[in-house]
């Protein structure tokens, strides 16, 4: 069994460019917007989703032949909920301030459509190892968008990245001001709209070749 065959590599890398879960499949938007007002919670959220997607994919893939078809949604939800509970308890123990910042959005990973989408579309029909790669790929693709939007919003909204001042004091002395609008929820939507615009413009050109 070759672990890194061409097919497996594609499973891993496709979500990162062509088949991005947020921009192309429009999944998992809810939490993508709410946690991105600063970079740090965005990174933590992205990591949590990656871990949970990967492991729930593996678990469902292992037991996929024993799940009765009619109740599979409930089985999937319970597996995901158990994993989310574990991650949320770990977050509370290790990084309490971030877990307070993320508040209910950690719990909302359960209803994140990326998870359910991947479980239904991939893990139910594939072996554990490709499912694991698929989960990691999709999770990282999701984290990538969170980090882009989070970095933009923190840089222009607060003039800092990860809490460190990036924009020098001399700019403020010369009359530069932080854009308070960026910290507002509405701006996340507009920024994500622009990211999708750029992404589509880029990949439409690829199509024409």
């Amino acid at each position, binding site marked *: 069994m070759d672990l890194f065959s061409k097919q497996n590599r594609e499973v891993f890398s496709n979500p990162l460019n062509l088949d991005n879960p947020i921009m192309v499949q*429009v999944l998992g938007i809810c939490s993508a917007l709410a946690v991105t007002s600063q970079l740090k919670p965005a990174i933590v959220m992205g990591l949590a989703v990656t871990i949970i997607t990967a492991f729930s994919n593996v678990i469902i893939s292992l037991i996929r032949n024993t799940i009765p078809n009619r109740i599979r949604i409930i089985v999937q939800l319970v597996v995901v909920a158990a994993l989310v509970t574990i991650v949320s308890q770990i977050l509370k123990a290790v990084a309490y301030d971030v877990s307070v910042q993320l508040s209910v959005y950690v719990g909302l990973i359960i209803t994140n459509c990326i998870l359910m989408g991947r479980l239904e579309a991939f893990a139910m029909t594939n072996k554990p190892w490709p499912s694991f790669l698929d989960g990691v790929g999709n999770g990282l693709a999701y984290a990538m968008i969170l980090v882009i939007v989070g970095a933009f919003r923190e840089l222009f909204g607060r003039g800092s990245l990860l809490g460190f001042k990036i924009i020098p004091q001399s700019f403020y002395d010369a009359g530069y001001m932080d854009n308070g609008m960026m910290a507002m929820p509405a701006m*996340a939507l507009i920024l994500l709209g622009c990211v*999708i*615009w750029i992404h589509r413009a880029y990949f439409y050109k690829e199509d024409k070749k």
Partner: protein
Amino acid sequence: MEHLISLFFRSIFVDNMIFAFFLGMCSFLAVSKNVKTSFGLGAAVTFVLVVTTPVNYLLLTKVLGPDCLADGVDLTYLSFILFIAVIAGIVQIVEMAVEKYSPSLYGALGIFLPLIAVNCAIMGASLFMQQRIGLDPSSSQYIGSVWDALIYGLGSGIGWTLAIVAMGAIREKMEYSDVPKPLQGLGITFITVGLMAMAMMCFSGLKI
């Protein structure tokens, strides 16, 4: 009574599920192509919210809370699993009831009925309810009884319905406008929702 009214209007306008917390975006974007289906889904979501929020409140405070089942036992950390099980169960019951008693409505809602189970707005309302139990009782967001939970569920549902119907109407009109090609569909919808959220921000200072 005053508290209930204030909680109700706050959950519709100020703490709007979509414009303030972005909950239920996935189905919001997928279904809001016209006003009619938007309204159907909004009504179904409101109904499920009205049932699940008080049920989860009761389970949380009477079963999972500290010293409820036995002295010294605090099962609050199980709340995620319990909430999602209750929601999935109730959605299943609603689906079966609608299928049996009103086949025409069942046909109209189609796949969106079972999908309500994974709608973030439903789960979000239960999680916010859990958070608000710990608030100061004088705050207008405080939830301290099953009636508060019921009104909060109702208000959130109405707020969600309002948002999706407005979005459906705008998208119907937008069919006729000339949007740059890469921006068509998803991109322009996001920017529209952003502008709507900005407009809803005018309610944020509202004191009732």
